[in-house]
């Protein structure tokens, strides 16, 4: 799943090197518009609904965090 998420991030932030532990928010790889694109793609790819009222930074800090968020919602 981490690989799939990496591919999604590659379309949102191209030409940037991203590793499983890259700090996506701290390093500014995910900005506010990137977040929307990411949420939409995750919802589409995994047929999940990410609860909007509970969005928080811890779940999007790294690819690993995003993957565990998705796994919880599957």
């Amino acid at each position, binding site marked *: 799943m981490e690989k799939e998420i990496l591919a999604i991030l590659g379309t949102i932030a191209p030409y940037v090197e991203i590793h499983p532990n890259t700090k996506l928010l701290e390093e500014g790889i995910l900005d*506010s518009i990137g977040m929307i694109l990411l949420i939409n793609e995750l919802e589409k790819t995994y047929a999940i609904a990410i609860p909007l*009222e509970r969005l928080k930074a811890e779940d999007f800090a790294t690819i690993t965090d995003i993957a565990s968020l998705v796994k919880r919602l599957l």
Partner: protein
Amino acid sequence: MTNLTQYLDLQNRLRKDKIAVKDGETTLTFGELYQQVNGIGQKIVDMEPGLFNSPIIIFSPKSVVAYCAVLGVLWSGNYYVPIDIEMPIDRLKLIVSTLGARLALTSPNGIDALNAAGFCGRTIVLDALIPLKSDVEVPTGREKILDVDPAYLLFTSGSTGIPKGVVISHRAVIDYMQWQCATLHFDESTILANQAPFHFDASMPDIYTPLVCGATLTLLENQRFLFPNQLVEFLNQNQVNTLIWVPSALMLLTAKDYFAQNTIKGLRLVMFCGEVMPTKHLNIWRKYYPDTVFVNLYGPTETAYACTYYVIDRDFPDTEPLPIGKPCQNTEILILNEWDQQVSPGETGELCVRGSSLSLGYYGDIVKTNTAFVQSPLHTKYRDLIYRTGDLVRQNEFGEILYVGRKDFQIKHRGHRIELGEIEAVAYGIAEMEQCCAVYDEEKQQIILYCVLSTGGGMEKDIYMHLKKHLPIYMLPAKIQCKDTLPLNANGKIDRLALKNQA
């Protein structure tokens, strides 16, 4: 009023103990703000006695301390130049050398970048609020400011690759602020949440509304927009009732159905300017906030935030564009055709602006200034300048102005004004670049750079890294495509339209 610092005197007299400005850490009343601003003004004068009507750089993330610094510069009789703390070094170099400023007010994390950019003036480090010695005010030079003197200078994208410095006078700001506060009923119960950074002219009304009408300003860090659910909560905690945001920021809250979970309580007024607000998104806002007043404003940086406005007073289908309305107070709009005559009703022409809101011109660039700010073609009796915006507009059956498009290759992307030519100019700095053309895909809101390379291709990442060194993040292309040739039009020029259709 003849200069903006007088408004701070006024608020210090009228409501010393009311909250003027706050961020996550610091809150200042008007009385405290007055002391801070006075203190910074003194510090500037102590360090550079005699510096008057000169540019002073503000190089800092947004904070209450930076807000005090902005006003402190005015207090010293000089004008401020806010620069993005994340500006790539090569662009910073261009700006620093164009400006030749003698003084910079910088946050601690900005010192190295300023030095690396070749800044050789003196610096005042903004690390905290300044300790206050006494209430005694020593004259700083602000008494000598005329309303035609500059208040601030903002750098905006330039088509030849060099950013243009737009100089705005005290009078232009005063004119706009007086109109805004009276027409849209701002008063001391107004609580604003500032979205735009200070280096962006969309922040101008946020900066001055507290001073002019005693409103409270809450500064929002950029990070707040990552999680709109938390943002709405924060706005409610701070009892924010007025938003002056760019459409891109408003759209972040309607891109997903956040308002179904939680809404902004007591929202009175939402103003937006800087780019086209898609009606579809506005309609979502109106659905959740039927009692809120929504205002669409229009204005280039060269006319101090806005020169036309439209208070949304009827329903628009999702696909119908919003009018930009009618001129603000003390402003005249001329719509001129290619022979510099006023168009007949309904005909498309270039929007030109008259009035004291006009910029004083481009810093150190008399040629560009004289091209954009010209004698009104309607007469030659006396000096009467208009600013040619390059925006094409027409009037509808209600006499409201409608935005049609651009005369040139300037675009609006995420609220920022970008010359596609500036991206191309930087891309041509790559040795292997033979031809390139930047286009904007409005639908996907993406900049795409098409390139022809002497190596044939395979350098997308290198090109991206090169651009990143020279351009702010919002100017970077989302896609770089190498091609064998670029399509040409009948005149032998690169066919942008054909490329755009490929996008």
